[in-house]
Structure formats: C-alpha cells, structure tokens
C-alpha cells in the first residue's frame, strides 16, 4: 500500500480504511499483533487484516462486519485526524484541475494544515513530481511529515516549518503551481511568484471571506498575474429514497355510473381508504450546502 500506488493485499505497516457504514470510517495502522476496537467489536490485525485482500468483508469479534478499503486521498480526507480546518474533496478536485496538476508537476503549498490537500496533490504528481509544503506551526509540520512517511509518499514531498509570508517556500523558479491557504494570502503572493518557473504556471488561493479574496486579487494583479478568476464550488448530495405520496380523495364521482354493488365495494362510506403512490425520488439537501471558501485562480505569465 501507498497513497500513490494500489496493492491488492493488506500488509503489515499499511494504513487501511475500515468502512463501518455510510459516512462512518476510520483509518487503521496495520501492525502485526495489534488490535483495533470498532463498534462491531475487535479487529485483530494479524488474523483479520494482514494477508487479506483490500475490499474484504471482515467479521469482528462481536459478529458484526466491516469492509477494509485501500486508502485513497479521498478516503483520507474524510477520516484524517483534524488538527485544523481542512479542505474537502469538492474543492480539492477543482484545485487539482484548475492548477493543471499531473504527473511530474512541481507544486508549492502553504499551509500544510492537516495534509488533506497535500495527499491529493501527491497522488496526482507522482511518480516524478514534487511537493514543497510550508507550515508555520511546528507541531503540525512534524505530524504531517510523519504521516507522509507512513503513507509512503515522503520521497515526493519536502515539509518546511517556516512562515511563508516572511520566508517564502524555500525554493525559487521551480514550481508549476502554487496553492495558498493562509489567513493573509496577499502577503505571500510575491513569494508564490518567486517560487514559480520562469515560463509561468498557475496559482490558487483559498479564503473563506470575500474581503481576503479582494486583497489577494489586488496583490495578484499588482504582481502581474493574469486570468485572475474567483469561483466557489458547492457539492449537493442527492439522497435516493422511495417516497410515498398520499392521493387526495375528492369523494366519489357521481358522473361515473356505477352498479350499486360495485359502488358499495369501492367506497365503504365510513372509513375512506387512504391510497398512496410510491416513487423513487432524490431528497434534496435540507440545507443549502455550506460555504467553505472562495477559490481564486490566476496564471503567472512568463517572466524574464
């Protein structure tokens, strides 16, 4: 297992995703002899996990069963331990395409946060790209570096613990793309520019408030970035259900000629039968999906 390469079988040292049920998953570090407690009982790693195929249905001690899934950046995003607000897959997918990431891309990112986006970037730029990620919070930088190792993607990433607004990304003229998720992205725009290739590239800044977006757009324009564009992407999940709709009873229709007996049968007068029709429908999200942030994209043109 690695976050950039599939394996068929679970091995000692892997990180596996235990799927307990709809929207209920947990990551498990697979270790010989170890045990993991789930709501369906204990999972014994040596017997229940190691050597089995990813995707297997595994019976826990209490008789309940779980599925053990191969990790992906997307499963990691929904199961990772939060140390900060994180980016979710809807935004990540958009960022990946709009930054034109692909195998071989060199990317700079700050802040690393809980590493949700970092894993997705690494998946896309492997096996020949590199991620330079800058996190000013020391504890977080150390933790995420440890996770990169466990997920076997550490050869693709350099974690720096510094202040991107003051110290930049620690590299110059190498990046195809830069991503900013910091409180004052406008202070890092010149560093983003410096980190990028002479030929140019793409930059993205994520901010929850429109005021941050405005200052960032100004800084981007000042630094000569082009095609500055701000978007927001919201996800709607449609829950598929069988709905049951009562049918109105307008009373019997006197214009419809019926035999006395037939009428007696179809309308027993005292307790009208409540008819319903069933159909498949999607239940729209109860709330309009929540705002996460605005994504501002821009292109760095060629500089001499």
């Amino acid at each position, binding site marked *: 297992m690695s976050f950039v390469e599939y394996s068929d079988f679970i091995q000692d040292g892997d990180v596996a995703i235990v799927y307990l049920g709809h929207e209920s998953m947990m990551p498990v570090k697979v270790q010989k002899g170890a045990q993991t407690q789930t709501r369906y009982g204990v999972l014994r790693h040596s017997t229940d996990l190691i050597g089995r195929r990813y995707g297997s249905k595994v019976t826990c001690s209490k008789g309940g069963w779980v599925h053990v899934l191969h990790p992906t950046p997307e499963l990691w995003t929904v199961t990772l331990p939060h140390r900060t607000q994180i980016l979710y897959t809807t935004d990540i997918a958009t960022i990946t395409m709009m930054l034109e990431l692909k195998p071989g891309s060199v990317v700079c990112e700050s802040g690393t946060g809980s590493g949700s986006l970092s894993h997705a970037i690494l998946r896309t730029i492997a096996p020949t790209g590199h991620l330079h990620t800058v996190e000013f919070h020391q504890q977080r930088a150390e933790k995420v570096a440890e996770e990169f190792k466990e997920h076997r993607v550490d050869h693709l990433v350099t974690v720096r613990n510094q202040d991107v607004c003051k110290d930049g990304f620690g590299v110059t003229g190498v990046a195809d793309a830069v991503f900013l998720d910091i409180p004052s992205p406008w202070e890092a725009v010149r560093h983003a520019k410096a980190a990028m290739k002479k030929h140019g590239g793409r930059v993205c800044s994520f901010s929850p408030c429109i005021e941050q977006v405005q200052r960032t757009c100004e800084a981007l324009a000042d630094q000569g970035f082009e095609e500055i564009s701000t978007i927001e992407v919201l996800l709607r999940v449609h829950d598929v259900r069988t709905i049951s709709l009562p049918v*109105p009873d307008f009373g019997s229709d006197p214009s419809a000629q019926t035999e006395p007996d037939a009428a007696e049968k179809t309308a027993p007068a005292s307790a009208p039968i409540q008819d319903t029709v069933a159909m498949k429908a999607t239940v729209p999200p109860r709330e309009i999906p929540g705002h996460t942030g605005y994504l501002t994209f821009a292109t760095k043109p060629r500089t001499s």
Partner: protein
Amino acid sequence: MADNGDDESQYRIKGGDYVVLKRGEIFKAVQIQPKKKVIFEKQWFFLDNAVGHLYSTTFEIGSGGVLQLRKLRDAESSTDAKEAGTDNRNIVDDGKSQKLTRDDIEMLKEQGLKGQEIIQQLIDNSSTFRDKTGFSQDKYIKKKKKKYENTVTILKPSCRILAMMYQGREPGKIRHLRYDTLAQMLTLANIHAGSKVLVFDTCAGLVLGAVMERMGGYGSVIQMYPRGEPVRAGVESFGFPAHFRDTLHGFPICHVNALLAGTLDTTAKDPSAGRAFFFLNKSLRNRVKVLTSCFFFQAQEKKVKQEEKRKKLAAAAALLEGRNADGLVIASQYQPCPVLMGLLKFLSPSRPFVVYSQHKEPLIECYTKLKEHGGTVGVRLTDTWLRHYQVGFKL
C-alpha cells in the same frame, strides 16, 4: 400618509398577542398568556413583564424567569478592547488553554453573573485568547456568546419571520418548504388584496397564513383540506386581527366531486357526513338511515357548533360554485398531480396557480399531465438557490 398621531398602540405588546421570541437566528412563536411558563433555548421564563413594552424590545432573563429590559449598551462592542496576535502559530490545541472548569462556570452562573460577564471571565482565563488573531477572537466570542447569553427579543410575527422559524425548527411540518420558495410562490400566484384564492396547505398552515397576510383582510381565502379538520396552527401564529377570520373559509376536498356534480347538500345536519350521505343517497338508500342515525348521536351534543359548521360549508361552497377563483396555491405532501387537476377546475381563465412539492419527481409527472391535458400556458418547473454572504468583516 405621514406617521400622524404616532399611534404607538399598534407597536406595543398586549396580553393575548401572538409574538415571536428571537435569540440570534433562533425563533419561537408563542402567545402572551399571564403567568404562563415559556421554554426557549433551554431556558424558562414568563412573558408577563413584556406587556406594554414595544415590539422588537430585547429583554434579559433574570432570576425566577422574570424578563427585565436589557441595559442599553452595544452588545457587539462590549467586550473589552482586544489585544490580538498576528497569527495562530503559537497556539497548541491541547485543550488546556481554558483555566476555568465546567464547575467554575456553573458557579459563576449561580452567582448570578450575566452572559456577558461570564464570557469576559472566560476570556480572562484563557491562556491563548491574546495570541489569537482578531478573526479567531471574534469567532471565540461569538461561540461563547451563543452558549451563555440569556437575552430574548420579542417580535411581531410576519410571514418572513414565521417562514424562517419553521424552516429552522420544524422543517418536516412544513414539508421542507424554504422561505425563499414560499416567497416565489406568493409572487408567482399573484396573491393580492381583493382576490379569491384557493389554498391546499398541509404545511402547518404557514402557506395559508402567508396568503392571508398578503391579502390583508380583503377578499376571500378558501382552504381546501383533506380528511379531518383543516390544519391552521401556522395561521394562529400570524396573530391576525379578528376580522381576517371572516375572509377565511374551509372546504373539505372529499366534497369536491359532489360540488362539481351539483349534488352537494349543505342543508344536511352534519356536513362531515355529507360525503356518505350524498353517496348512499344515490345507490344504497336502505343503509342511509343506519348511517345517518349513527352520526346523529355524535352530533347531538355539538348541535350549535354543527349548525355553524354547516353554514360555513355552505358559504365556502357558494364561493367555489362560480368556479371563478383568482389564484390557487398547493403546498403539501400529497401527490401533486391529482390535487392540481382536481382543484384547477375552480380557477377562472387567465389566473395563475402554483404547486409546491418537496420532491421534483412528482412535479415532473404533474408537468407532463398538464401538458397533455392542455388549457394552461406558461407552465414552468423551477427551484431557487439561496446563498448567504458574510460581508463586512474588516481585515
């Protein structure tokens, strides 16, 4: 046209008024009743002290659930001038930054400290507050405020407020009808004073109330209701003047076919037996007596009320008989297609109608049927998308 005479009485809270309690984004509709304990946001209090004050006044909940006028101060700026860090880099989230324990906080509450004061205590005892950025500080205060503040604002009800209230508190009761959708319906149905509007509302009466508000007591509203009694809880909450009631009529849809056939007998003693009566009348005359006498026993004790009901049904039937309604609004969990096709017959030509369903799929069926059936123009299946923007946070 000027605000002459400054007739303040209409703006004052009176005993018996239907009002809406508000805290932050939370609303609750209640009636002002003497010594009636009200529970709102896990706190209980009495509304007696609110009587005589102006609507939109904010009160603090004192000990013993007594409302007191909130001291005038700007709630937003009351927390002492903040000292803010430039970023959150040094903040380690170890759960140890707050020195006050839960027990400490409970003690402060028992000492009678107000929400505002408790929040200030929390700030003073937070080892990280000063290091947080201004943005994080604001977020912190807002969060704590929500938890510890004990104020309540008393509002005059309106369609806007009640729609938002239902959406937040009991969306299931109003079939998940959002307030932006309700707004579209009222406008697209061209609801206005002086018209005759049919409403099929199983959304707690919210839609019915909204229609009545827009008609302002002019014209007539006929609530077409399925089985049993019409649902009107939502209408109560609007606190309409008494004369609005005269414009509201009810008609049980189980009489619709009889009415259309001209065989509805509103002289029947018990209109709720109308359907059975009519039906049996035609085909099962020998069973009629049994049934009507059966109904009769129940009806004895309610004779006066029944007579009133009979008159009301007759009045509603008279309004419907011309088949010249000016508007039709349907909002329910019922299969929309038969409801619409059944009630459309009562609409004048060139008049708008609107049908709401929580689900798109039954409306596709409805749309298809309308197109097949003909006789309507400009039919559209739409939804709206409402976005809130947080604007004005200064960096």
